[in-house]
């Protein structure tokens, strides 16, 4: 069975400092992995996705994530936080690559950015 665990329910950083949101996955084969962001009262927006083309994935708004199979991790990072980054972030695994199907969401990490 596939699952995803976000290790922190809440992360707080100061503006201009690095962001690290941690995610570990469980899958019996190489999965597709995603990070989605949800701003207050807004829909979910795709930040980036891993589909085996490259282990370091760059997304929108300066975010990137690295797929590490040996650690079963897909942590999300950003070198310098901006106030507009404050939102909830979801690490997501798709059970079957290149096929349709349900997404399995982590519990979410709320990112706060202090001025």
């Amino acid at each position: 069975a596939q699952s995803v665990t976000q290790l922190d329910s809440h992360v707080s950083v100061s503006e201009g400092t690095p962001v690290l949101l941690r995610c570990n996955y469980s899958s019996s084969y190489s999965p597709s992995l995603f990070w989605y962001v949800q701003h207050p009262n807004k829909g979910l927006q795709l930040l980036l996705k891993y589909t085996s083309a490259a282990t370091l994935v760059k997304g929108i708004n300066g975010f990137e994530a690295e797929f590490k199979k040996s650690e079963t991790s897909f942590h999300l990072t950003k070198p310098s936080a901006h106030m507009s980054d404050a939102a909830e972030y979801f690490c997501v695994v798709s059970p079957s690559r290149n096929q349709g199907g349900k997404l399995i969401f982590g519990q979410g990490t709320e990112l706060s950015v202090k001025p």
Partner: protein
Amino acid sequence: GAGVSQSPSNKVTEKGKDVELRCDPISGHTALYWYRQSLGQGLEFLIYFQGNSAPDKSGLPSDRFSAERTGGSVSTLTIQRTQQEDSAVYLCASSPRGQGSYISYNEQFFGPGTRLTVL
């Protein structure tokens, strides 16, 4: 272009009443998904439609929940005899299913959701 739209944006109903939630996917997307987002359960998959195939209903929490997709486009999620625990935000997503298309690998585009409150 237009994204996924959902209506209504908010719905307040009384316990025991039936509700219908509507989703208009992105034009040309063949896959459509329903999810539920609630405080206690996070984001949960409900049901998935792909073209003319039988839908994957494995996430529906009870037989009070049903969904249909007419003409391969618009979808309606129906909750009968609503209960207070049905209160949540119901999200719809759609996805293209291009053949051999890198971009289409399971990327789902989400609508803004319908916030359902059952009193």
